[in-house]
């Protein structure tokens, strides 16, 4: 395959970025999108140019490191797939692809396609946990959890923290990310003791970081590589109202 890539290049956080065109050749349909970038980078290094910086690690869709806007779609055109899971057979030969970093105020660009997502960590620090010290736990089977609650909690817990929901949202909202964690713990008895403080603190931190509010476009669910449902946002809202009412 041959492709033309239009890639966002930005030397550093304060540098001015621009789109640069790169033709790539000899691409196999079995390659992942990131392996295609490896081919480009190999050539750039050999030519004495700076390779394109991008975050990646597990390359099997679970660590959440990668995240690239491809033709304006977070993680590219395929559903249920992170960028690293995207194969080149998803694109026609000769295609032109615009390749950009996540764009959201709370995710500043570090270099090229690499952004700073530590805002997510700070939201987690605000309340994304159950306060249990090591060694305090009762027997694991002491509290039965109905299977459907456990399954729904797992649906939410599948979030990989990649930030596609934010990148794709017209408001740059992190509601789906926050909802996934709040919902997981709201569904499990272990999370109930702190449910009020959790939802209040996590949402407050979300606002502090500069993420927008949900405007119900549901783009987040559509682009989420783990297909996390906006129903969890509904549960987040219920938890918030509940916290305020009680």
């Amino acid at each position, binding site marked *: 395959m041959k492709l033309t890539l239009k890639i966002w290049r930005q030397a550093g956080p304060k540098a001015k970025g621009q789109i640069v065109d790169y033709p790539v050749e000899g691409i*196999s349909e079995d390659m992942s999108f*990131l392996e295609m970038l490896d081919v480009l980078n190999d050539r750039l290094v050999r030519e004495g140019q700076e390779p394109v910086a991008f975050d990646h*690690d597990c390359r099997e869709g679970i660590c*959440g490191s990668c995240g690239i806007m491809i033709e304006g779609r977070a993680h590219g055109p395929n559903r249920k797939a992170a960028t690293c899971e995207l194969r080149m057979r998803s694109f026609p030969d000769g295609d032109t692809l615009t390749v950009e970093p996540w764009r959201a105020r709370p995710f500043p660009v570090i270099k090229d396609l690499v952004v700073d*997502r530590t805002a997510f960590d700070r939201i987690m*620090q605000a309340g994304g946990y159950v306060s249990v010290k090591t060694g305090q736990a009762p027997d694991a089977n002491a509290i039965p959890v109905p299977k459907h609650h*456990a*399954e729904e909690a797992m649906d939410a817990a599948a979030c990989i923290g990649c930030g596609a929901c934010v990148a794709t949202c017209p408001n740059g909202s992190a509601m789906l990310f926050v909802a996934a964690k709040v919902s997981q713990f709201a569904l499990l008895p272990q999370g109930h003791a702190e449910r009020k403080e959790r939802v209040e603190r996590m949402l407050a931190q979300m606002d502090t970081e500069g993420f927008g509010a949900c405007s119900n476009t549901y783009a987040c669910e559509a682009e989420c590589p783990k297909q996390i449902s906006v129903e969890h946002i509904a549960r987040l809202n219920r938890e918030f109202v509940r916290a305020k009412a009680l």
Partner: protein
Amino acid sequence: MSILDSKVPEGPIERKWTAHKNHIHLVNPANKRRIDVIVVGTGLAGSSAAASLAEMGYNVKTFCYQDSARRAHSIAAQGGINAAKNYQNDGDSVYRLFYDTLKGGDYRSREANTYRLAEVSASIIDQCVAQGVPFARDYGGLLDNRSFGGAQVSRTFYARGQTGQQLLLGAYSALMRQVGKGKVKMYDRHEMLDLVVVGGKARGIIARNLVTGKLERHGAHAVLLCTGGYGNVFFLSTNAMGCNVTAAWKSHKRGAFMANPCYTQIHPTCIPVSGDHQSKLTLMSESLRNDGRIWVPKKLEDAKAIQQGKKKGSDIAEEDRDYYLERRYPSFGNLVPRDVASRAAKERCDAGFGVNRTGEAVYLDFSAAIERYGKMEANVHHIDNPSKEKVRELGMKVVSAKYGNLFDMYENIVGENPYEHPMKIYPAVHYTMGGLWVDYNLQSTVPGMYVLGEANFSDHGANRLGASALMQGLADGYFVIPYTIADQLAGEIRTGPIKTDTTEFEQAEQHVRSRIEQLMNTKGTEPVDHFHKRLGKVMWDKCGMARNAKGLQEAIEEIRRIREDFWKNVRVPGKADEFNQELEKAGRVADFLELGELMCKDALHRNESCGGHFREEYQTEEGEALRDDNNFAYVGAWEWKGDPGAAELHKEALKFTVLQLSQRSYK
């Protein structure tokens, strides 16, 4: 050569750990606040250790190379975590888990550590459930289990195919809670590039801020390495792209012995290599072997036709299929341990029976399972005389509910529907049992430096059983180190903060700086990956699933040549004082180029076969691994002497007081 003291406590094995905990030093709460601990790596071992130590009151600094602690590669573990809970009432016990782990490791692990691992396993599940980890449950709301490669009881807890993710997020949430409280200072996008030893004790690290390129000095009273395994020395592995040996290797050069580096686990069920562009390999969970049957054609001409694309697996009649694991190992069948399953696949493919273009793949077939489940479902739904299609439809639903995400992943990568055509799989490097030598307290040969999780060597011997890596990472972090570290730290309460403006820190930083400059200034012609791929090929061909003396000697020569070439011809673009991913890779590959030689040296010296270390010269008539317990029942721990080839061997004799050494048999 010296004899290493493992500091295993006296007494009967089932009382060692309790007795040890009762007599270990304690640090009082006020004094804990005066003690700083560095934790490098935020996988299961690192996150759980950092969170637990901070909860206890120590001041913790945590480092990871990723942009967030949550991304460490523990997250990719699919299948599950073992624990001796006996919730399924199938006769499981601490003893049985210990027995399976020790036997599975081919009697090359330290008995007391393995027993302790089994002993604390049940508490891990309690801890994780309390954190809100959504394990699979049955309809009564209690925890579900499955059986997993190499075990005859159902002791594996799981969260769909994402158990590692859920356990890591549990530990990460505990860690984030402590970061929020200010008890842990988190340094993400930081890489440890040297260990600082002062007066014979580990006193800190030199880390590079990967965003700015700045070198930083961090002092502490103890350093914990939780930095995972070194499988990426093979270039292609199931490890994440960034997984590396650098922190462990730098520590090795500062005095930590590297134990059994040749023990590598090759996982039997991975998606085969598709071409030269391949950057990593993807594991298909071992849980698939519970229902999938592994086979190759019986006839060479069928295999040839498949390799040439003239036939498909589904064209081969039932009687022409060779279910070689069921044939060779009737009692364990497709569930034999990983090393056995991997070697059996290689044996068939080497004999010409492989089932893809490269001849390096075997089938993992679910058609029998689909039919079996379909018939069961038909009974449940009172469908009499269901048609073949109906049975298939019902069966596919069951298989999809159990393994749907894995089937989707396979189809996405390979571009072929695994419900229609049998999956193709081949072994790939997955885990390294070897690692830095530690005593019973998890302390390395550098006092004050501890090693946890995959980075150490102690619990799995020469082969790790499925679902035991998660268990070990969390056992070390939650339930071992919080107790054992106090033994050392109790002596540090009057030390005061560790100063970093000393000669030792200065020299270590200079050392790191000059190595970076050397990489930047080489200005050769070849990118880093070029050398990494060459190294990987040598390692895979000559120090992989099967090894022999001649191949290993050649490998050592070849690796030396690649290393020499690397330092002459590597090209690292950009600058050192900026975000520079090529520079990061270059540093890691430089260390792999040294480690690889030591692995070969270790494999060459171990004139026996055990677990994942299969020396072709030492096998039974039936082609099974042949141990030599008289001469090799020891841990081989290597001391750095300025060059990998000059490493000096030290031994820790392995004593087995509970189990009789026997040849592993899964027949």
